[in-house]
Structures are given as C-alpha cells and as structure tokens.
C-alpha cells in the first residue's frame, strides 16, 4: 500500500462523483426530504415522536446510501475493465479499499452536515448533546456503509445482484436496529443478533447524542464497535478481491 496511490484513488472517485451532479444532489436532498416528511407526519401527535425517531434515521441514511453507491461503483469498475487494468499496476488492494472509504467519508461529511442541520434547524429536532458528535457518528456510519458495500460487491456478479444486496445486507439491520421495536423488547435471539449488527450501534449512538447532555461516554463504545466492523469488512473485502480471475 502506498499513500500517494490511495489519495489519488480517493481523489479520482470524488472527481467521478463531482461530475455526476444528480447523484450528489440525491445524496444530499433525499435524507432531508425524508426527515422533513417524517417531522410532518408526526406534527400533530401529542408526544414528540420525531425526537426519538429522527436521530435513528440520521443513523440509517449514511449507511444505506453509501452502501448502495459503493457497491454499484465498484461493480462498475469490475465490469468495465478499469479494475482489471488497475490490478496490473502497483495499486494495492488496500489502496483501492481505503481510497473508496476516504472518498465516501468526505461525501458523508457533507451529507451529515446538511442532514443534521436540516433536522435540527428546519424540522426542530431536539438534540441534547453536541451537534458535532452527530456529524462524527454519521461519517463513521457512512464509512461503515462503504466498507460493507465493498465487501458485498465482491459477491455480486451483475448489477441486478448488487442492487439486491441492499435489501439483503441492509434491511435486516434496519428491522433490528431498534427503530421499529426497541432493542430491549425484542425476542432474546433477535436482540442477540441486533447486538452484533453494526447499524444498531449507529442508531444507539445517535439516540444517545439526542437524549443526553454529556453522551461521549456512551457514544465512544458504539463508535468502537463500528470501527471494528469497518476494519473487518475492509480486510474481508481485500481478501475477496483477487488479482487473478478465472
């Protein structure tokens, strides 16, 4: 691995995104529209439901969006031949993995700032803890989505399969992350599964920031689990990426 190649790869991926205005707009606008819709949906309810669901959604968007974008982008590299060419160059597999993680981490930073600002100042989401921590969690969450997307795309042979991995990888995590049923009220087995899945920790961390004035002590362990997942997914991803193919 080589810092020059990793950074060049991240810059190249960001340039590709920058050229695609519609994708960038969708990445930034869709979370806001959904948050706005949700705030509106609960506008007339007696208790402030949005304050408990809103933070959880802030934890779901980055992971889902980056998962989809990454798995399609890397599959495109595989099918277009650009990956085959790259694998004959000094580029290491780690350079490619980290390049993607860095590039989408930067995208996630922008997305997190926009979505959090919209949730707090436009939708009136009540956040007890510091706002910067929301953004930090969102960025780690997005890099997690990218890492899982890289791993999943290794198993996809076609675009159709790559798109199907979204419901396969992400929807179970979404159902079990505590957004629909609080995690401590799930059947024991499901709670145990939920305790392993990374999205649960993103949602927990977001909720902690929203409800506690001093959440750092609760958030750091969750971030730790997410980081472990990122490393595991990137390592598994580089192991499944083969220079030689049949």
């Amino acid at each position, binding site marked *: 691995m080589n810092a*020059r190649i990793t950074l*060049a*790869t991240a810059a190249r991926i960001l340039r590709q995104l920058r050229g695609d205005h519609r994708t960038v707009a969708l990445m930034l606008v869709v979370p806001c529209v959904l948050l706005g819709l949700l705030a509106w949906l609960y506008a007339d309810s007696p208790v402030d439901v949005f304050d408990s669901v809103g933070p959880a959604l802030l934890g779901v968007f980055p992971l889902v969006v980056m998962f989809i974008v990454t798995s399609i982008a890397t599959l495109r590299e595989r099918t277009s*031949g650009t990956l085959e060419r*790259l694998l*004959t160059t000094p580029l290491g597999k780690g350079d490619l993995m980290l390049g993607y993680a860095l590039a989408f981490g930067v995208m996630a930073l922008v997305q997190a700032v926009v979505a959090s600002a919209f949730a707090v100042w436009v939708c009136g989401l009540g956040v007890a803890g510091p706002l910067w921590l929301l953004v930090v969690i969102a960025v780690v969450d997005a890099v997690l989505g990218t890492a899982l997307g890289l791993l999943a795309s290794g198993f996809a042979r076609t675009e159709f399969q790559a798109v199907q991995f979204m419901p396969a990888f992400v929807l179970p995590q979404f159902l079990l992350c505590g957004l629909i049923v609080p995690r401590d009220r799930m059947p024991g087995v499901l709670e145990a599964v939920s305790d392993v899945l990374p999205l649960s920790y993103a949602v927990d961390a977001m909720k902690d920031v929203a409800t506690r004035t001093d959440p750092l002590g609760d958030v750091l362990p969750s971030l730790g689990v997410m980081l472990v997942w990122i490393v595991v997914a990137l390592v598994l991803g580089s192991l499944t990426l083969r220079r*030689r193919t049949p």
Partner: protein
Amino acid sequence: MTDDAIVVDDLRVVRGGREVIPGLSMTVPRGEIVGLLGPSGGGKSTLMRAVVGVQVVASGTVTVLGEAAGSPALRRRVGYLTQAPSVYADLTVRENVRYLARVVGADAAAAERAIAAVDLTDHADARAGALSGGQLSRAGLACTLVGDPDVLVLDEPTVGLDPVLRRDLWRIFRGLAADGRTLLVSSHVMDEAVRCDRLVLLRAGRVLSDSTLPGLLERTGTTDAESAFLALVDADDGRAVDPPPEGYRGRHAGEGS
C-alpha cells in the same frame, strides 16, 4: 537472463469449465513487436491476461523480464491495454490519464505526452463517455503509455481506427521498440501483420505458426497475411488447401503491392 522479454512455457488455462489454452509455449524477444493474430475466441485475450498476471492459470509458467508474470516487481514495468476500453466514462481524458500516471508514479507532463501521442490533445477535457469509439480506445492506450513501461501488452489497440491513425500509432509502437521496449499486440486486421517483427497465429489456444511474415508467406506459399492465415487454418482442419477462386486471389494480389 535470456534475451526474451516474455517466456510462456506449457501454459494451460481453463475458463468457464473449458480448456481454452491446452498447453502453449512461446517467447517474445526483447525489443521486438510480436503480433498476436487469430480467430475470435482463439485465446488471444486469455494469453495476454496470463502475461500481465490477471488470469488464473491451471498449469505452466509465464515469465516476464525474468520474473513470474504478475509479480509485484513487474507492475511498474508492464503496461496492459484491455480489449474493452477501460477508462472511467465519467472523467475527462486528462483526468483518466493523470490518475493512471499517479498510480504508476509518472508526472503530469508524462500524462500530457501520452495524450499527445494518441492525438487526443484537442479532446483532453472531453468526458470519456462523450468520445467516439476510436477516441475512447485511444484514451485507454494513453493510460497504458503514460507509465512508459518496458513491456506493453496491447489487446487490439487499433480496432476501429482509420488508416491514418493506425499508421501513427504503429509509428509510436515502432519507436517504443526501437527504444528497447517489447510489445505484444493482438489484432484482427491482417494488414497490420506487416508492421510486426514476428507473428504468432493462435487458434483454439494453440500456436498455429510463430515466425516472421516473410517466413510465414514462404511456408504457406501465399502473398499476404490473410491468405497465409486462411491456408494455415484450412491445413489445421485437415482440409486440402484449395487454390482460392480467381477473382478472390486477384483482389488480394492487387492489395498486397
């Protein structure tokens, strides 16, 4: 240390459950241009993938510049052009070439030289997705040239190009060979055979012929590469090599001059 840049020894490749290359040996001498010709599906791309080290091989060895194909030391010294134009459609030509330049450790000036070499300076800021087919394949070639590799493995670099561009590219290839670079170039266009130092005819993963063009013509008693190739294929099928119909032969004889 031998004088051969590429040595393929008893290579066997199985793809999709079929034995695509059943045991192939060949060499490419240093500083020469070797043309890889043969029918579609004959295994040209597969052989090239093995030479650059991205093909899973069943057995046999491929040695490039004295090292096992695909070994880390070779990745800076071997340039590969895939048959599919492997450029990022959403980047400009310049962005594509500069990215590859950074990956192989070349500078921006090298990128500009590579773009100029394939005559795309006028289109350097055009998005690759908006290029014509021939321009696209030249953009891909610029990405291969930018690292100034010692060995170039080019899979159909001149497909879909007009005669003027083809001549210009072959001048570049010849210049590279004169500088001591080694080129393995596949082609469908038989008249490009004239421009190669040696020709390897590949069919069903086997070498039908490996010689210079004059040697090939002499052996087959033909006057141009295309008829020589057809004669070899017919002989390979065990068919008698019929004299071609008069009109056909006349047309080719005319072209050969």
